[in-house]
């Protein structure tokens, strides 16, 4: 492990100054992803700037029914917040379905959104990986890719973004608050935060060096909406999603976002349009979900994810309807 310096930022300006002071400086949230990757030699920062104690840990419910969640708020606190549980159940469930109690207590909202892919080759410095080592090639495409992406991927990279939180935020149309090093505040819709790999898989987000994620804003959920998050995984706790879905359903609209299938939380806009205001059968939902995968690039071991997603979306919408909450 390479020796590195650690600094604790006292205010966002100082944090940005520190992190832009040298090219190999990074922000540190709860460290549950960054520190692991440092131990593995995947990331070798020279300076780690701890932003977990900056005053961005609010959970503020707004009069309009929306909520502001600070980037330094710990996942556990957000998941157990009474207002979040009541008004944004898919968000609470997504968080609770992720990692373990210990990790959730440590992990921050910003860190969760910016955590790196779990692609095993990205995490193993002894193998080629275009994301870690540009131009070295993708080991996953000809190798073990069962857990990786089927859509939005490229011939250079099939990594998925592993966050459950991001998937729920996508379904709630959340916006990410970013503080630029010059102090400017920028709002980035969650769907625009992560970039698709194309031929530059090492560029993962639209953030620029020194950009600090200070929070997320959730607009009020649609009137009378019911919502949930369901996650298929290889065991019933403490596993990343094979496929997951966040669904928000109201009388006139349905919003669907998938996890486990793409390099970012994957909104099913085509499906949503086909289903909005209809009373679809399970088969209609499956067909509409499949339609969102026309541009998919499934690989031999993960092609099953598309049909699984179709079944999962059908099941979740069926459950939300029969829960009786949609009138």
């Amino acid at each position, binding site marked *: 492990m390479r020796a590195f310096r650690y600094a604790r930022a006292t205010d966002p300006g100082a944090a940005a100054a520190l992190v832009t002071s040298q090219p190999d400086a990074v922000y540190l949230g709860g460290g549950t992803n960054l520190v692991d990757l440092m131990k593995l030699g995947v990331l070798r920062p020279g300076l780690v700037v701890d932003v977990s104690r900056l005053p961005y840990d609010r959970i503020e419910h707004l009069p309009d029914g929306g909520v502001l969640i600070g980037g330094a708020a710990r996942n556990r606190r957000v998941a157990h917040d009474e207002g979040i549980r009541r008004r944004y159940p898919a968000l609470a469930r997504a968080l609770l379905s992720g990692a373990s109690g210990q990790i959730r207590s440590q992990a921050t909202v910003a860190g969760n959104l910016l955590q790196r892919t779990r692609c*095993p080759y990205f995490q*193993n410095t*002894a193998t080629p990986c275009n994301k870690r080592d540009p131009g070295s090639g993708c080991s996953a495409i000809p190798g*073990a890719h069962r857990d990786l992406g089927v859509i939005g991927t490229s011939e250079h990279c099939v990594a998925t973004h592993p966050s459950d939180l991001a998937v729920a935020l996508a379904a709630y149309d959340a916006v990410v608050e970013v503080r630029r090093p010059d102090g400017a505040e920028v709002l980035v819709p969650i769907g625009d935060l992560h970039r698709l790999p194309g031929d530059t898989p090492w560029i993962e987000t639209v953030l620029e060096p020194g950009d600090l994620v200070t929070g997320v804003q959730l607009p009020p959920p649609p009137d009378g909406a019911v919502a949930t998050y369901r996650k*298929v995984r290889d065991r*019933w706790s403490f596993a990343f999603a094979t496929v997951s879905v966040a669904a928000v359903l109201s009388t006139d609209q349905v919003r669907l976002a998938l996890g486990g299938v793409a390099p970012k939380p994957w909104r099913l806009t085509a499906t949503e349009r086909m289903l909005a205001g209809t009373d679809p059968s399970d088969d209609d939902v499956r067909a509409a979900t499949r339609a969102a995968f026309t541009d998919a690039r499934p690989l031999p071991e993960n092609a099953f994810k598309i049909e699984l997603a179709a079944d999962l979306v059908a099941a979740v919408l069926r459950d939300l309807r029969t829960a009786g909450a949609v009138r």
Partner: protein
Amino acid sequence: MTAGSGLSRLEGHDKVTGAARYAYEYPVEDVLYVWPVGATVASGTVTEVDSTAALADPEVVAVIDHTNAPRLLPAVTADELVLQSPTVAYRGQIVAAVVATTIEAAQEGAEQVLVRYVEHGHKVVLDPEDPDLEQPETTNAGFPGTSIKGDVDAALAAADVVVDTVYTTPAQHNNPMETVAIIARWDGERLLLHDSNQGPWAAATAFGMLWGIPPSQVDVVTEHVGGGFGSKVWPTAGAVVATVAARVTGRPCKLMLTRQQMYTMAPARTATRSRIRLGARSDGTLTAIDHDALQYSSVIHEFVEQTGSATRTMYASDNLRIRHRLARLNLPTPRVMRAPGKTPGMFALESAMDELAYALDLDPLALRLRNEPATEPASGLPFDGRHLVDCLQAGADKFGWASRDPTPGARRRGRWLFGTGLASAMYPVYQQGGKATARAEPDGTFDVWVAAVDIGTGSRTALWQAAVDALGVPPSQVSIHIGHSAYGQAALAGGSAGTASWGGAVRKACLELSRRVAEHGGAVPSDGLEVTADTAEDQLAPDRARHSYGAHFCAVRVDADTGQVRVDRLLGVFAHGHALNARTTHSQLLGGMVMGVSMALCEQTVVDPRLGLFVNHDLAQYHVATNADIRGLEAHSLERADDDVTLVGGKGIGELGIVGSAAAVANAVFHATGVRVRDLPITPERVRAR
């Protein structure tokens, strides 16, 4: 009387408070840290190890490779002969080691070492069409590679019903909480080790062989061990490299493998492929059993998993054929993992029995009862305590099996499909000779020494109870000392034989000591009384088939939307005779059952064929079952007097619980869904592949 009681562990308080010291935690002055470098090709020759950059760090003391490592002598497997040649037999094989004054510098040094290779072609996939398959003479634990009784082919041709199916299990890795850990020191020609292993005497013997010194010159202290499951039975490549580093630097050296390193520098279980053919008459009488088992070893050492060995003994059939074939792959030599051979082999056999029951339209329990043998099918030996039927019947009662409707895929509530399945379990009785010493002091206290090890099973406590019982004195007067090779020749914690073997010697020494104390009229002379017992001559004659038995009954629910499986209930009934400690016995049985569910639903080491890589080498990716995966778990013991065959009574229990449990889960999944998953683990996509 303490034996059999559910006494909690003697060292439990020390363990939960952190006071218990594990191998890596002994303070040693002037110690150096060792970080092994694994090969990044699956097959090839090292042409250069460039250590210039690593050695530029003043904290790095040495970089060792095959050109400057001292010579070792063959001991147990070729994998332990670290840094002896430039040949790379598998990815991750140790090709260099960095020794430094801090662990960080050692790790960083390892990243700076530049190894160049000439790559050769490699083969890492178990393939029944592999033209180079070998037919081994014998398997692990000394079973014949091939055994044939009667005419299987003719019997299959004449059978009313034939089941002919293939079952596969993936490579699986031992993941003890404490990884391989060692502190090594040389004192002249004496090797002093604090080492995490499954038998300090065996470790002393094997390290002695490697270094060409007698075991008496190797001092191994193994006070506490955080699990083994088979990975620490013999010195691992990882541990040996620390002794090499200590030799080269002349200073104490310590090493603890990372979780990732465990996947190639410590042993795993082979992948297996079992083709099972069962022939039966329409009344359910088996007429033929054929088990064709394929497994792999490395290209540098022959290890043959005894995959077909349980099939030798389970069910009556006049025609029985068991064959083992071996592929040689560019992977680390696989070794033992809890219930080697029995675990993958019984997944296959017990799944096939379920398939046969369906083919015959017979209850799976009835099918097993119908084929209960009078003598052991392969050997013809009479049984000592065959209690399979007792276990099956007791389990059926407790579980409520009788009311089961066998129709597959017929029970749905909401999103859930429900099903139940059963499977048999067996594990052989092993016991080995060894020594123990008991000593009486004039103040009325007693000390007992045996080179046993407690890898988390509770053996220390059980042995202490055995000593207290045999001495017949108040427990507070007896102290037990284990975990040191200096206490004399002793068995390994392996083959479920540890506690039985050590306990036999402890009991013998204590009984003899009591007799000697009685000879002195109960008054211990001022210089004390001491007895060393050896049970080498007291071993079981090979005239009986002696096994523990069990039966698993499993209820699962399967998510009809997604194919996810959850175990609602797993109930095991086991016949293992007298339990030295009821509580730790129960824990061992439960632990085995949980490991079987893990095997059924999650565990697999994914191999990348192109890179020759174990892909998912950490516990975030290599999944084992969590509490959420198993809602109900029960283990019951049937005590049967004729099971008390070892010197301390009883039979081994450490491995029994895992055997068959994966098949019970798979059989229940079939009953729930109508989908027969023959390839483990049972992932959602496999359940969905209808």
